[in-house]
């Protein structure tokens, strides 16, 4: 597993078409995947076991971000201080702020209340699990919508698996109530300060957190007239 910044080439090809990304973007290799078709480094002679594919996610953006992104980032830095936002990612016309978990409540409050920012509506909160990012496995993703300025922003908080606590933003956005419960239910992120953090979609006594990557899909093999098809997570995979 490697991590490193690579300046992306002048263009990338997407499905045969040339896509020229914006100046402010770098690609960061977050993981290298090996093998294909479920073959993992064994003594196979097909060659598929030795295939290497780096996963390059959009990395930190450089200033200027473009459009209104700069003024929002500046205003937020003014209000919440320098250390609140760890990094800014600008990708595909969307602004993502990686926020430190200690500051998320303050950042949310400023985003909602300040006249220049005015993100009144929290669209939703969900989680993403990146098991290869040791120390930052669980990401809570907040999507905010500013109806006054007609723009969106994404906040991302990364917490380690060993200590999955994030302050709850229910006091700022009451709609976060069920969304945080759902994120807890599926990923195990514990939102401190939530009025009633319990499972919402799974049965109350369900063990485990289903949408984590190590949780199996849980299907059964399907058999019909002598032919068996394995469940989806045990079939051959191309990635």
């Amino acid at each position, binding site marked *: 597993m490697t991590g490193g910044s690579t300046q992306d080439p002048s263009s990338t090809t997407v499905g045969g078409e040339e896509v020229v990304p914006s100046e402010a973007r770098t690609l960061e290799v977050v993981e290298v995947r090996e093998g294909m078709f479920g073959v993992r480094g064994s003594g196979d002679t097909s060659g598929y076991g030795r295939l290497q594919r780096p996963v390059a996610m959009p990395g930190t953006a450089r200033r200027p971000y473009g459009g209104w992104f700069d003024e929002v980032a500046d205003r937020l830095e003014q209000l919440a201080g320098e250390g609140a936002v760890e990094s800014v990612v600008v990708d595909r016309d969307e602004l993502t702020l990686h926020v430190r978990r200690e500051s998320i409540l303050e950042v949310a409050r400023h985003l909602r209340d300040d006249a220049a920012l005015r993100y009144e509506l929290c669209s939703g909160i969900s989680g993403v699990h990146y098991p290869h990012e040791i120390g930052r496995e669980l990401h809570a993703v907040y999507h905010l919508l500013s109806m006054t300025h007609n723009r969106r922003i994404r906040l991302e908080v990364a917490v380690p698996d060993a200590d999955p606590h994030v302050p709850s933003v229910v006091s700022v956005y009451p709609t976060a109530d069920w969304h945080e419960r759902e994120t807890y239910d599926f990923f195990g992120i514990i939102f401190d300060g939530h009025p009633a953090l319990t499972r919402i979609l*799974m*049965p109350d006594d*369900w063990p485990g957190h*289903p949408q984590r990557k190590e*949780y*199996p*899909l*849980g*299907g*059964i093999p*399907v*058999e*019909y*007239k*002598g*032919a068996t098809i394995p*469940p*989806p997570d045990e079939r051959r995979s191309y990635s």
Partner: protein
Amino acid sequence: MGLEEKLPSGVLLTTVEGLAGYFRKASFWPATFGLACCAIEMMEFGAPKYDSSRFGMEVFRASPRQADLMIVAGRVSQKMAPVLRQIYDQMANPKYVLAMGVCASSGGMFNNYAIVQGVDHIVPVDMYLPGCPPRPEMLIDSVMKLHTKIQETKLGQHRLDQIDSDEKVALEAVPASAMKGLLR
């Protein structure tokens, strides 16, 4: 004009079982157990275009105590399974279960942790109806097949004999897993 005119001397002979079967199938009230997409097609079945009222089934009884047929329409999640069983237990005999749609019959496309892979894991099913979702015409077809089954249901000791013979036939039948060869 009517049936009465055609009968010789105006008298119709039948059996008690035939009459009981006829009454039971003609007034076959479903319990509302619509869960997901199939429930919408089930409601279309009750709607004017695919009228269920012509079969005597327009009253979808909310109370399982008054229902004869439980149409499990939709995917049954792990959380819903005990509720399903409780509703089934509350129904009075004779009761029938129709698994509508592939999710109710076998888990459908959702072969995962959250969906029970077929309601026959929970309740005994009398009719499986595949489709995602099945058209209302397909639902009518399955209901018609259930009607023939109900018409032939006997009473009393004949019923117990019928159950025994059905069980014998089922035990001696070739299981689907042994039917190797063409997947048809």
